[in-house]
């Protein structure tokens, strides 16, 4: 308020001064409190020279400046334009890999995403993506195949009741789609880390294979996960969504739900879980689509 009044006074004084004297001030007001003086701004001035000499010097500087700048701009533009699609695709793949290594360097399973009170749950829930859900399967027919889990002698074939017997975890978290939208969902299921602990009790996380491949029963949709992200405490094998059993379009009877990665990685209707040391294939990171394999949060 006071500031505003000061401003008005200042402006009025300038106007009045110009009206009365018919003059204008060069650099008005030439007061010692101007910002440059207060902050002790430096000026860097050459020795006084004749106007012609100043122009000559300036011309030489301009020619050099515009030449260097012009060449730099052209090199930039044309190296980007002439870079082939293959080279660019490789560049972006390498960038994603680099970003992934930076993310992993700072990653910790101890850091959790926000959880929300029940009134924040998004209703009605949003549906998106039906890859791998074409077959009609009942929960009774469904089986979960688990392969390559160290410490368990043979591959496992589990029913939904086997999974539901494991420790139950609930979380109300934000589901984030790579498209940019998000919804808040109440999940219930078994933590992936608890699942591993149940079927491979003697193995420490360090001795686990580096990756996990998850596939739908028809193998039409598949995602690859790094072991650190799938061991995050907010990564569940979920069988309930918003206080009801998972519905068909959300991946009945069992899906992945996690705060550690985008929705594209939270595969619906898991049919096979395969532990592997080779980086698994991943639906949306296939070259034809070009998304980030890691897609981690």
């Amino acid at each position, binding site marked *: 308020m006071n500031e505003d009044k000061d401003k008005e006074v200042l402006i009025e*004084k300038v106007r009045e001064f110009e009206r009365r004297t018919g003059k204008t*001030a060069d650099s*008005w007001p030439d007061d010692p409190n101007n910002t440059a003086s207060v902050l*002790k701004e430096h000026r860097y*001035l050459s020795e006084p020279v004749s106007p012609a000499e*100043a122009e000559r*010097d300036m011309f030489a500087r301009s020619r050099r*400046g515009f030449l260097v700048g012009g060449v730099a701009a052209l090199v930039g533009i044309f190296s980007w334009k002439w870079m082939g699609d293959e080279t660019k695709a490789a560049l972006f793949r390498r960038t994603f890999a680099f970003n992934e290594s930076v993310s992993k360097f700072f990653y910790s399973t101890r850091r959790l995403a926000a959880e929300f009170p029940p009134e924040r749950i998004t209703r009605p829930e949003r549906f998106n993506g039906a890859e791998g859900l074409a077959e009609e399967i009942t929960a009774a027919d469904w089986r979960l195949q688990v392969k390559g889990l160290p410490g368990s002698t043979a591959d496992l074939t589990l029913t939904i009741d086997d999974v539901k017997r494991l420790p139950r975890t609930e979380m109300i978290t934000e589901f984030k789609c790579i498209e940019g939208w998000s919804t808040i969902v109440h999940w219930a299921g078994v933590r992936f880390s608890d699942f591993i602990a149940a079927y491979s009790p003697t193995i420490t996380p360090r001795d686990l294979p580096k990756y996990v491949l998850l596939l739908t029963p028809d193998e039409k949709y598949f995602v690859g996960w790094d072991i650190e992200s799938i061991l995050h405490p907010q990564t569940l094998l979920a069988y309930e969504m918003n206080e009801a059993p998972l519905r068909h379009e959300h991946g009945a009877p069992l899906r992945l739900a996690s705060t550690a990665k985008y929705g594209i990685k939270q595969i619906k209707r898991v049919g096979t879980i395969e532990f592997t040391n080779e980086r698994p294939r991943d639906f949306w990171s296939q070259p034809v689509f070009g998304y980030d394999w890691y897609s981690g*949060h």
Partner: protein
Amino acid sequence: MQKQLEKKHPLAVRWMHWINFPLLTMMIWSGILIYWANPVYGVRILGYELFKFFPQWFYEYLSIPFRLAEGLQLHFFFMWFFAVNGIVYLIYTFVSGEWRALLPIPASLKRAPLVALHDAHIVKSKPPQGKYNDAQRIAYTSVIAMGAGSVITGLAIYKPAQLSWLTSLLGGYEWARWEHFWLMVLFVLFFAVHVFQVAMAGWANFRSMITGYDIVDAAGPTEPTATAATQTGEEVTA
């Protein structure tokens, strides 16, 4: 009258300024490719939508639809250069003392309207000016803060779980995305005003951002010489 060459913009600042131009352009372009996949923002007053980001013709004219993956590839490539350029600039400005020519002080808020009045030819007297006047100090400091804001809000959207404290601080994931988007709008508005002002300021000013130098009259305008105001004994400081 004798002339002097005044060094205005250090080499490092000139390079970082011009490098930032294509980088920010690519960040905005790839950002719009990403935004298209969930284009939910607009300007609404009393429930009536004045403007939608963006109208359909805009997307079609620039062939934006269905390029989300490409947008993410570009965004997560150029982000490094944008962020590093900005961080180096901050360090340079702090260490070199260039901040003295850049930062506003509280009184700048009071003087900035005089710059606008002068630009609009309502007041003829020139506002006090070092390298920059008070309006420029506010504008250029703001745009640096906006750059920092874009990196911070961007990080909050990029790693909302690992950096959940940051995301929460910004009001949550949805708000962080909104803030990230509106900072982009502010950048575009800044660009429009900046280009207009540079065009109005003329060739010598533009050239100084390429060469670093400008020609000034010997004993330049901010030397403590007697001005019209002090000669007539007017007390004009508020």
